């Protein structure tokens, strides 16, 4: 049941710029306007009466039955339909269908308007395609590298020289065939993946012979110039030139040859080619990959993060525009800048080692702003790194504590590598070396030193026990003896009170002497914090010597004291410094006894040095210190004594260093060792 539109309407119908087709519900075409004829390339006469789907090869996004059902139910349908025009070209059509019903409500006609989306779709597809290429380029290292063997070319050049050719440039220009021959003699040893992609279009096998196929005929000159550069000892040669892919298509490339002397000597050459259309980005990428490679190579076992610092660069630029020249005072005034800078420093790549160190299962956990790695209150290292960056320094390193993504805190050596040209490209490399163990070890060592200082004192006491026992026993024996004698005098028929009084006075003196010895021992074995007081070093030496009197006598050592008169007071802990003197003297005595030197002389000197420091030296006439021992002398558990613990000197050193002084070992000119302790004068006031 078809009905032609009215003639007036038909005119109007043809004026509409949009394609309008009227069909019956089964698909037979009832009306076809001019715009439809233009769109499909089919005249109205050829279209009328034909089934539309067949005429236009329509492909609908859903089954026709479904579209019909929607039409019946809602009265309209819209969707994208693929059709073909008279020439067979594919068309993408935005189709709108509306249903006309008769009085009873039964479907009568379908009016279709069509808008051509083909151009739009083609553009989109082209865009997608170029984006795909773009992404591919981006992902690959954008430089093609070739390792070449040109030893055969070298032989050819020698023949030319023998033949009397002096002007190579002119000779090559005159003999293009020779240049092509040299290209064929340039063998390919190896190429990288990018070369396979760029020249071989994915096929590596075709790339492994010689370089001739890859030079466009127009590029003979460039090849010739690179050969001339090589033989005239240039370090490298760079030129833009026309190159050829394996399928014969040509492109513009930036050709770089490096003539490293050691490689050239072996007839080897490294060539780099960059697709010049992508030159700018590729160049940055080359630098990026090279520096990344170089740095990664140096730091294999190190956690390594690549940061995109372009955001930070922007912040820096803003500050410079504001006239900021030094970041340090600026951060003092704007501490919040640190967190801004962290947000602007974004991790974009990490190495394998970082996963382990930073507690990540997946590399993606590590990407993003560096903020998560920094512990509030531990920003110093980050601050130092950006301050160095602001000063355009190429590197920075510091020990710091960082947070891992699994919530641990680790001590790391944090270092930043960003040569200015890299930083300008927004690339900053950050390395982290786990030093938790070292830091823990250092803490343990400090703890151990405290223990050792105590153990050292106790050990020394052990070594001196015999002397001490003797020292204490003397007054004890005297007291008992005097007491017994006193009793005898008092027990006489006529008690001799005077004798008893004398004896009692002696007893009191002896008891005092014993008490002093005991006090000294107790002070030495006590583990207590140092008590710095002003003290005279000369008096301290004399006390120590008294303590050692018996030892000196037992070793039959002669003691010589050379104490500077009017020596300024030092600041220090009396017991600890006494311990140092005693230790040095005992060491000297033992060294002389061990070597069994016939003349045992011990000298203790004090003086004020030219630098206004107080020096105390202990000198002996022993064998001196063998050269190989100097380095180890102050290390714990290093001992030259058969039963030595090796604690004495390290303890001495830690005591002296705690006093802000130094201890040094040396040998005397005439033989024997000299240990010198230097203490600073207390600050005036």
């Amino acid at each position, binding site marked *: 049941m078809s009905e032609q539109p009215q003639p007036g309407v038909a005119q109007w119908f043809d004026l509409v710029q949009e394609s309008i087709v009227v069909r019956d519900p089964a698909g037979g075409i009832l009306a076809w306007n001019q715009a439809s004829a233009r769109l499909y390339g089919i005249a109205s006469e050829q279209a009328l009466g034909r089934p539309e789907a067949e005429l236009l090869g329509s492909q609908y996004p859903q089954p026709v039955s479904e579209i019909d059902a929607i039409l019946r139910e809602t009265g309209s349908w819209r969707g994208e339909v693929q059709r073909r025009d008279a020439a067979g070209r594919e068309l993408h059509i935005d189709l709108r269908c509306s249903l006309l019903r008769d009085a009873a409500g039964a479907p009568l006609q379908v009016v279709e308007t069509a808008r051509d989306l083909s151009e739009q779709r083609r553009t989109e597809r082209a865009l997608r395609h170029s984006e795909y290429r773009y992404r591919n380029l981006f992902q690959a290292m954008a430089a093609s590298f070739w390792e070449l063997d040109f030893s055969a070319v070298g032989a050819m050049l020698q023949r030319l020289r023998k033949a009397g050719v002096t002007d190579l440039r002119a000779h090559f220009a005159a003999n293009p065939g020779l240049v092509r021959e040299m290209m064929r003699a340039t063998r390919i040893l190896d190429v990288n993946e990018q070369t396979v992609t760029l020249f071989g279009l994915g096929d590596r096998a075709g790339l492994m012979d010689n370089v001739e196929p890859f030079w466009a005929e127009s590029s003979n000159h460039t090849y010739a110039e690179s050969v001339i550069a090589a033989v005239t000892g240039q370090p490298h040669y760079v030129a833009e030139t026309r190159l050829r892919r394996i399928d014969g298509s040509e492109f513009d490339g930036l050709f770089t040859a490096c003539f490293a002397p050691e490689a050239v000597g072996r007839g080897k050459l490294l060539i780099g080619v960059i697709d010049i259309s992508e030159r700018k980005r590729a160049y940055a990428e080359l630098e990026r990959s090279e520096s990344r490679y170089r740095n990664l190579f140096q730091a294999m076992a190190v956690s390594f993060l690549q940061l995109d610092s372009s955001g930070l660069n922007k912040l820096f630029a803003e500050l410079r525009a504001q006239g900021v020249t030094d970041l340090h005072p600026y951060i003092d005034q704007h501490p919040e800048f640190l967190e801004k800078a962290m947000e602007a420093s974004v991790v974009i790549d990490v190495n394998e080692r970082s996963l382990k160190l930073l507690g990540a299962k997946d590399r993606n956990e590590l990407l993003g702003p560096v903020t998560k790695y920094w512990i509030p209150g531990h920003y110093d290292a980050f601050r130092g790194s950006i301050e160095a960056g602001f000063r355009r320094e190429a590197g920075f390193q510091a020990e710091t504590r960082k947070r891992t993504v699994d919530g641990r805190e680790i001590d790391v050596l944090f270092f930043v590598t960003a040569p200015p040209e890299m930083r300008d490209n927004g690339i900053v490399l950050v390395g982290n070396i786990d030093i938790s163990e070292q830091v823990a070890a250092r803490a343990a060592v400090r703890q151990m030193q405290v223990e050792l200082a105590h153990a050292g004192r106790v050990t020394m006491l052990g070594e001196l026990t*015999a002397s001490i026992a*003797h020292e204490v026993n*003397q*007054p004890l*024996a005297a007291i008992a*003896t005097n*007491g017994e*004698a006193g009793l005898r005098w008092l027990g006489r028929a006529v008690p001799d009170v005077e004798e008893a009084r004398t004896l009692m006075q*002696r007893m009191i003196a002896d008891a005092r*002497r014993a008490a002093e010895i005991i006090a000294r021992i107790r002070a030495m074995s006590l583990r207590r914090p140092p008590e710095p007081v002003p003290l005279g070093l000369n008096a301290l030496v004399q006390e120590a010597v008294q303590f050692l009197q018996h030892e000196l006598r037992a070793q039959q050592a002669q003691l010589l004291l050379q104490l500077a008169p009017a020596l300024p007071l030092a600041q220090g802990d009396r017991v600890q410094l006494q311990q140092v003197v005693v230790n040095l003297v005992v060491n000297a005595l033992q060294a002389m006894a061990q070597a069994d030197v016939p003349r045992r002389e011990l000298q203790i000197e004090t003086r004020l040095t030219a630098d206004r420091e107080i020096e105390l030296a202990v000198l002996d006439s022993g064998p001196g210190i063998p050269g190989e021992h100097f380095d180890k002398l102050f290390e714990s558990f290093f001992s030259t004594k058969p039963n030595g613990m090796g604690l004495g000197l390290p303890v001495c050193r830690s005591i002296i260093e705690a006093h802000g002084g130094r201890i040094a070992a040396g040998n005397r000119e005439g033989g024997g060792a000299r240990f010198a302790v230097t203490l600073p004068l207390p600050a005036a006031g």
Partner: protein
Amino acid sequence: MSQAAPLISIVDDDESLKLALVGLVRSFGYEGRGHASAEDFLASGDAGQCACLVTDLHMPGLGGIELLQRLRADGNKVPAVLITARMLPGLEQRARDAGARCLLPKPFDPQTLMRCIEQALPPVS
């Protein structure tokens, strides 16, 4: 005729103990004379006169045992008591071998020392 009190010679480098020992023997009625070293004692000539010698073992220069060895080598058989602050293994044997009556570690009981001295003296006739 009252006999002169027997001379007890004391050799010790510790001044206070030497004085105490001299005082002790004097309180027991003997004559006491102290010497700060074995060399002093030998030089004093007391070696030929004393009835008993009390000497320290460890002294700078000649030690107690060496002193005793030298006296014995000269044929001097004076009874000797050794005192020492350091009781080392084997010392007792060495003291006996050198001809000492007693070896007493310091600090000693003064009464024990006096018993040693009195036992060493020749019986009073």
